[in-house]
């Protein structure tokens, strides 16, 4: 089995590692709340919050879920999941992107339509 403590000393080192990860997770939780209370721009707040959350999730996965040193098949499965997860959000960008970047809709002859598509209806 992966990561089994083999001796008393190794066991103690392992426990210290888990407690260090615990401390890091608590500190990052405080940082998340503190940054959100600052008056940053919306995009900066989102970027910081998602980055910290991803880092916390990686710590939990690597150490508590024993992903560190896990066999390749697990990573292949998770890699495929990552691609599909990214696809979910890629579809969102394709759906919402035209509104965000202000795509101009043309008619069949390449001319701008007489009436612009109404805003706020999706």
């Amino acid at each position, binding site marked *: *089995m992966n990561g*089994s403590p083999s001796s008393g000393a190794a*066991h103690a080192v392992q426990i210290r590692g888990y407690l260090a990860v615990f401390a890091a997770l608590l500190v990052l*939780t405080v940082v998340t709340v503190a940054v*959100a209370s600052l008056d940053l721009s919306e995009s900066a707040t989102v970027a910081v*919050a998602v980055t910290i959350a991803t880092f916390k999730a990686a710590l939990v996965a690597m150490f508590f879920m024993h992903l560190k040193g896990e066999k390749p098949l697990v990573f292949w499965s998770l890699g495929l999941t990552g691609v*599909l997860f990214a696809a979910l959000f890629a579809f969102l960008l394709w759906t919402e992107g035209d509104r965000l970047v202000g795509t101009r809709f043309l008619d069949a002859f390449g001319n701008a339509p007489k009436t612009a598509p109404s805003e706020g209806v999706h």
Partner: protein
Amino acid sequence: MDALPYTTTVRPDTGLTSPKLGIWLFLASEVMLFGSLFSAYVLLRSGAPVWPDQSATLSVPLATLNTVILISSSVTMVLAWAGAASGRLSRYRLFMGLTLLGGALFLVVKWIEYSDKFSHGLYPSTNNFLALYFTMTGLHAIHVIAGMVVNAYLIGPGARMWTKDHLRFTNRVEIAGIYWHFVDVVWIFLFPVLYLL
């Protein structure tokens, strides 16, 4: 009769024990389940002309408390596994008991939060944000309950395997732990997305 092969020995073609591969494939499907809800959240929010002030609608202090509770229960879960792996029954029982307590405390805080929303007339039908909030946290709470049922089994009747087949029991604790930590990971994303942004 031991009908299930590769519960303690590594299967040569996968390089893993079957429970280990099984839990990761299950969690892969769980990522897509929660991923669909997160993408629904992004779609509904980015398309909405106005969006409620989330941190004013919900209680950030209670959610922060719940984050600390769930992270703590993740640590106690991994310490329970380490106790089992090193053959210390009392340590295993202590930390598994604390993990169960953490799950119960999390649900109590969640119950307080839900009750407070309902008493202020805030329901899933009130707006898209609250619909997403109740759906996502509700689904997460169901996962907490499911994990607690498994953990309760492993500290109760399932603990008989401790002496009968110790390695297999330790593996069970590890698999239950991997699931429990996943529930923690989901909350790590739910907390900022629903409460802080």
